């Protein structure tokens, strides 16, 4: 069993309404030193696969096929345990 995390972010240059809204809200709350904010998703998966490299390859494949929309998003995967 391997745990993998897939993080999906909007590509640079793609407008990020949630990120913008969060940045604005943080400013309003008094966090004056916040610069750019980007919001994305994380998906943590338990894979029935002992080999870390294989698990990562599978997660990459899942990200390409479903978890990320490569038209607007990019992703990274990491093996957690």
């Amino acid at each position, binding site marked *: 069993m391997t745990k993998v995390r897939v993080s999906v972010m909007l590509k640079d240059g793609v*407008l990020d*309404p949630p990120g913008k*809204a969060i940045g604005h809200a943080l400013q309003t709350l008094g966090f004056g030193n916040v610069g750019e904010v980007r919001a994305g998703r994380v998906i943590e998966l338990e894979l029935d696969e002992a080999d870390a490299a294989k698990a990562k390859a599978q997660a990459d494949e899942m990200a390409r096929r479903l978890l990320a*929309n490569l*038209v607007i998003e990019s992703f990274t995967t990491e093996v957690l345990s």
Partner: protein
Amino acid sequence: MKAGIVVFPGTNRERDMAIALRRAAGTEPAMLWHRDTELPALDLVVLPGGFSHGDYLRSGAMAAHAPIMSAVRDFAARGGYVLGVCNGFQILTEAEMLPGALLRNAGMRFLSQDCHLRVERDDTPFTRGWREGDVFRAPMAHGDGNYVASEEELDRLEGEGQVAFRYSRADGGLADDANPNGSARAIAGVFSADRRVCGLMPHPEDLVDPLMGGEDGKPLFDGLVESFR
């Protein structure tokens, strides 16, 4: 016109769509199930609104992989017409049958209100019920309707006449305050390159009856019926 409406788990405007199609065509549309792998003989396939699979990952993302979508893709490739409204539009972009993507509304809130749409060309089965430049009212009801594509892609879409509808003022003028969800270049609906596939966010199917507030959406369906006569 023989139309089929695809129902995914979480689709919720299939009945609205059936009412509009029935009113225009006089015949009952077929209800298709997302797990079907073949389509019956049809002129038009409609992907209606709703929250397919809860829209939990990205709107339309999971439905785009449904078994029926290969059949829909083949159908379009063989010359069939496909209409996607709201979630249906999102599914078509996720399935890469239409360009671009739909992000969270710029204001970060679900918006349920009437908007005005300007018809960008009238030489397609989807828009022949109007004249180019016509403006009609339609209810919108979505949280993720903010149309995006790269600048080059947007230029290309405009150049090749793939923009179907834009959010506008009642007089047809474009303005930020008439673009409720922040869509790039106020785009509310697009065509595929061959103009056999059309997607839009607002709901013409919910405005086809004076009792419900008007018939502004009717030309979409009347035009389609005309095309297949």
